């Protein structure tokens, strides 16, 4: 006997718009993170009215709702932790309107981040937030997670690029937040809404700001024998008021892992490299590059390479952008962590991470958005060993706790989701959390939307996660 809600969902969305067979639901248990949770239904709205109807049905039947874009998130934001309906926005993927003169676009939430940039490239514009997953992740997901990327340093995270939102609240209300003006009168409700990880409402339309492509970009690679020197370089670049578009650091271990696959020309015997992008009008980029070069040399860079052309720049960045994948080739599974530290504390943090790795017997590589202090330790482990999985999580928790001790934060850009909810008390008092809950309750009073996220909950036994061991044949072959 199928549940009555299934009939209602099918009636609204058609048979192609609802998944409910176990073999299909198994494929919505995961996203880009290590979390798991199986929904009872997956639905595919095509227009705002569909979303209103889905929310109505969910309310009537008291079934939780979870929004999902491409499922590339790294904190379990799109996972149905308590079951219920996953609302996939993948088919709401139309660019509704591009207004070149006023540099804005109105899009459905399922539009892929880089697809928007490609579509407006001819007008010399782009959508600035550039998470590593930008070729697959959706703008709706970016709004929910307030995503950033390497170029966040100069351009800001997603919230700086959202002008207005159309949202459906779990109460069934359809709201329009903000307008296309840059500074709206009254409260900044889009600002409040962005980054709420799908716990306030389902976003059905987004008006985003488009940013002109820079006239010129200069890319520098500086090579160091000590992490301290690289860190000092970043501190001075910032102190001098130079604003790089991106400033990334890779540690020695990561460089060696990456170089053997990417062949970007990274020296194998160094302790750190900095990759720095400077952009703007031609003269400005050139002047800043020159100044940055001098700073690097003053702080002991043993080599500074300035990319001569687009091809060389791309090669250097390829090394950075493929870093995670390249490391993944060394190990069956890796766990990418996301923490924030004051950028001057990098050397001590890396030493501590090294100790934590040694304690649990893991190799840990480090990629660092040096400009804004966002650190990504990458823990290599074997998921087929349950104990290794538990240890990887324990090691990650220790790293994050250390970040907080230094005055940092538990996540820089991956979100809290169901990955770090239990770590929230490291950063926030019960009063802080209670205020956040009260704000959430204005929008989502019955906790119908994405329950079990952001706020700390006790994990149930079923959630102590480990992948099933490989089949015997796999081991034999």
């Amino acid at each position: 006997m199928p549940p009555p809600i299934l009939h209602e969902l099918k009636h609204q969305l058609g048979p192609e718009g609802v998944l409910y067979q176990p073999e299909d639901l198994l494929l919505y248990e995961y996203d880009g993170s290590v979390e798991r949770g199986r929904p009872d239904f997956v639905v595919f709205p095509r227009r705002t009215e569909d979303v209103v109807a889905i929310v109505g049905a969910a309310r009537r039947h008291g079934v939780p709702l979870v929004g999902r874009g491409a499922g590339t998130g790294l904190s379990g934001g799109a996972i149905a932790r308590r079951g219920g309906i996953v609302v996939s926005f993948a088919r709401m993927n139309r660019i509704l309107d591009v207004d070149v003169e006023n540099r804005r676009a109105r899009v459905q939430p399922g539009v892929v981040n880089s697809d928007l940039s490609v579509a407006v490239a001819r007008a010399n514009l782009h959508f600035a937030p550039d998470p590593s997953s930008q070729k697959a992740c959706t703008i709706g997901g970016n709004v929910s997670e307030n995503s950033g990327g390497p170029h966040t340093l100069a351009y800001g995270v997603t919230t700086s690029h959202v002008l207005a939102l159309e949202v459906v609240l779990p109460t069934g209300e359809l709201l329009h937040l903000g307008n296309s003006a840059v500074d709206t009168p009254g409260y900044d409700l889009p600002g409040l809404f962005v980054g709420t990880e799908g716990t306030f409402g389902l976003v059905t339309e987004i008006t985003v700001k488009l940013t002109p492509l820079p006239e010129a970009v200069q890319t520098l690679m500086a090579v160091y024998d000590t992490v301290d020197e690289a860190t000092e370089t970043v501190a001075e670049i910032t102190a001098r008021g130079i604003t790089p578009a991106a400033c990334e650091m890779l540690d020695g271990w990561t460089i060696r892992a990456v170089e053997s696959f990417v062949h970007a020309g990274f020296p194998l015997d160094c302790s750190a490299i900095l990759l720095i992008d400077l952009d703007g009008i031609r003269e400005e980029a050139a002047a800043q590059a020159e100044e940055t070069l001098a700073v690097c040399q003053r702080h002991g860079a043993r080599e500074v390479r300035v990319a001569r052309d687009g091809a060389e720049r791309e090669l250097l960045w390829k090394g950075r952008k493929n870093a995670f994948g390249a490391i993944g080739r060394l190990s069956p599974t890796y766990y990418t962590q996301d923490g924030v530290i004051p950028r001057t504390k990098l050397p001590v943090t890396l030493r501590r991470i090294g100790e934590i790795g040694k304690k649990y017997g893991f190799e840990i590589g480090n990629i660092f958005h040096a400009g804004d202090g966002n650190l990504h330790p990458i823990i290599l482990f074997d998921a087929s060993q349950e104990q290794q999985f538990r240890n990887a999580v324990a090691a990650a928790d220790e790293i994050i706790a250390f970040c907080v001790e230094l005055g940092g934060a538990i996540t820089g850009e991956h979100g809290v989701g169901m990955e770090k909810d239990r770590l929230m008390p490291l950063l926030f008092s019960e009063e802080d959390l209670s205020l956040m809950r009260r704000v959430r309750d204005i929008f989502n009073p019955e906790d119908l939307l994405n329950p079990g996220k952001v706020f700390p909950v006790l994990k149930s036994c079923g959630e102590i996660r480990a992948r099933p061991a490989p089949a015997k044949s796999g081991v034999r072959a």
Partner: protein
Amino acid sequence: MAANSARTGEMDPASAALDVFAADRPQYADYSRCVHCGLCLNHCPTYRLWHVEADSPRGRIRQMMLVDQGQLALGPSYVTHIDRCLDCRACETACPSGVEYGKLVEAARAQIEQGYRRPWPARIARDWAFRRLLPQPRRIAAAARLLRMYQRSGLGRLARATGILRLLGLRDRERLLPKVDSEFFFSELGKTFPARGTRRARVALFAGCVAQVAFSELHRATIRVLQANGCEVVVPPRQVCCGALASHAGVRDVARDLARENFAAFEDGDFDAILTSAAGCGSALKEYPQLFPSGDPAREPAACFSGKVRDVTEFLASLGLTAPLGRLPLRVTYQDSCHLAHGQGIREAPRALLCAIPGVELVEMPLAEQCCGSAGVYNVTQTKTSLELLALKMDAIRETGAQVIATANPGCILQLRAGTAIHGTSQEVLHVVELLDRALVPGSP
């Protein structure tokens, strides 16, 4: 396992059969590399059409894992989603973790072939195509003669005019059929074509199966271009089909037998390279070692053979063109053949060759790396999806205003020609090498 033991009789030594079966399924070491980051999704043609995980690379790999670990049945749902995969391997290009998806999906198909009983019409059709027709040059020739009779006798025109094809639901499929050559290429097997001018290389031409009855002109053009650029071209006589179609369909025992025959056919001759003008074949030929488990005696000849295989565009671009080329004032767009771009990582060589022709203006289409829907026999087995992808492709091509669509694989050529017929556009569809051949200056050394 019942299906397996029924099959062992057809395989080589019985002792090897068990290991072969163990290898003919997605392997833990391969699928566990996927960290389900999802970066592949937007690159997958079927995900872009339907937007469901089950028809995305990540979802398909997940299904392979679930089947391997006994949490999902080797049943109709799994088979449907694996069948719907084009095996275009665009996901491999997108994957940051280096997942070898092509290897995985072919293993999944071999697993299905052995562990799943398809409905009888599909069984008969597959058996006939992969076991009886493609591996046998004589049967290909006989079938081609029949088809040629249909195409030339007026029977084809009659079938189209009376609407009987539409009635049978075969109208679009008929358009995808190759036009059979007047003179098959089989007659050239065993011949050697001398280099013009100083000999710069000695190469063997891999002639394939269907190409010998439908793309003889492409082969002849390939030989002329190679000769003009100082290559001595040998067409080894005992060569057979590369086995790519069988392998893509999961019929690996046939693919292995064909591979062994080809090792023998190209063994002596001291060739600098073994060349193919079919990206699909090239990709399979370069991956022959994957067909054999480590320790198999065929592993070494496979590695030796595969090490010499080059796509003709790859080879010519690295050798450098020396033949003088005349002017071809044409606006050309290039459709990446999936098994060249994603399978072999070759994107620049064909473009460089096109740009080397004076007068050619190369205009890129949006999403040139996305599959046109041909994908081996996909346009026959999944016609509706194939035609949807083709329609998207024809839109992208129209945007360029190109007069010629160049590509690097006979399957793509057939599909795109059907595209121009179905959508009433007028572009000519040619292999890159055919354009080079046209530009050759007659009579020059």
